[in-house]
């Protein structure tokens, strides 16, 4: 074969062929795998929601458990109030700088477990290295936290990443987000160890201050919206 490997023509053709082959391969893979990936993502979301009401689910039974415990999903305020609550991507909305604050959608998951009602609220915010998110479950008095789950994308392992661990999120159980008159109480993350006990304070993670403060910011910002909503419901 006498094709000159280094000629412009050959180089050009090779480059174009390469782009076409690689582009097609990746597009096919991405499309073909998309439905499995989407299922994995929604299974994970269901597992997290259930974890906030202290129900352990696995990828295998996530859908089934979700259908059992979550009796209603709705959007309490936002642009698309009648859309499916589960499909709202609050992370995307949080990062969309063009989205007006009043247009943000706030989903709510109403769950029933052992005869009691719980209200699961999704929260999203920013940690040190990337996004953090979680789910906070309120008891039927709309004031007491029943449980919480937090997760992150790339916080420092052993430090900020520990927000995922039980020892951190268990602190939220029993804390009040509103006092008897309905005034919103933010859950403050403290560094001086005064977070023990039910005083609307939790202990931050040593060495993971920025991530812990990120959790405080996201819970404060989002829970305020829901507490207002619940107060309006009561009146």
């Amino acid at each position, binding site marked *: 074969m006498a094709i000159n490997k280094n000629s412009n023509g050959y180089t050009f053709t090779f480059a174009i062929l390469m782009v076409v082959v690689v582009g097609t391969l990746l597009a096919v*893979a991405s499309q073909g795998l998309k439905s499995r*990936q989407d299922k994995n993502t929604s299974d994970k979301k269901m597992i997290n929601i259930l974890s906030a009401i202290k129900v352990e689910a696995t990828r295998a039974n996530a859908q089934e458990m979700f259908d059992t415990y979550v009796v209603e999903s709705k959007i309490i305020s936002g642009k698309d109030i009648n859309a499916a609550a589960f499909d709202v991507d609050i992370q995307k909305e949080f990062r969309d700088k063009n989205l007006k604050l009043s247009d943000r959608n706030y989903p709510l998951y109403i769950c029933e477990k052992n005869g009691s009602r719980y209200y699961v609220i999704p929260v999203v915010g920013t940690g040190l290295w990337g996004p953090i998110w979680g789910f906070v479950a309120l008891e039927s008095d709309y004031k007491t936290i029943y449980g919480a789950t937090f997760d992150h994308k790339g916080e420092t*392992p052993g*430090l900020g990443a520990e927000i995922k661990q039980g020892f951190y999120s268990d602190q939220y159980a029993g804390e009040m987000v509103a006092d008897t008159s309905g005034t919103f109480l933010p859950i403050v993350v403290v560094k001086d160890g005064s977070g023990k006990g039910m005083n609307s304070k939790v202990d931050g993670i*040593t060495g993971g201050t920025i991530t812990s403060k990120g959790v405080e910011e996201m819970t404060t910002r989002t829970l305020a919206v829901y507490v207002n909503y619940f107060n309006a419901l009561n009146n």
Partner: protein
Amino acid sequence: MSEKKEELFSKKNRKLMTDPLDGSNPISVQVLGICSALAITVQVEQAFVMSAAVMAVMVFGNIIVSAMRNLIPSRIRIIVQLVIVAALVILVNELLKAFMPDVSEKLSVFVGLIITNCIIMGRLEAFALGNKVWPSFLDAIGNSIGYAWILVVVAFFRELFGSGKILGFQIIPESFYDAGYMNNNMMILPPMALITVALIIWVQRSKNTDLIEEN
């Protein structure tokens, strides 16, 4: 000129696999792949996952580039290599997201690091472009194991001293903590990874004096 067919595991080929374990170790001698050695050696599990991913990409990358070595125009060869590596990494990532989602969650942050992992590019450029498929395959295996063992050793020390655990299992007993022992949180931070690698280099070069640099 007829080339005598090289035995599959001839001495020369076996050397391709064993050299990178010590004498031409990608991290401590070739000075490649440092970024990931620092970033994902906080926990032993991370080190394993990353090493497996790097091995997969390196092996396939070496095989593909070696097979195509007579077709790639030399002017755009760096771009071609990069595109092949990037495509492989994206494919691995998409497959993991679909079939092993929990592993993919742990890996997602490092996906970018694999693409720019200089070891992969370095071996493509230095070896796969000029050698046949089978030796390129062995070279990939050798280098990825050489990379992996350093990663696991660094991660071992960082996880042990940084959080008292290995692979998530508590190793340092409670009694130590009660006596006042505290985890050295510095180990979790990247600068200590550098120092740990430096200590490994110290040990390695004390044993293998050929590697000592002249002033």
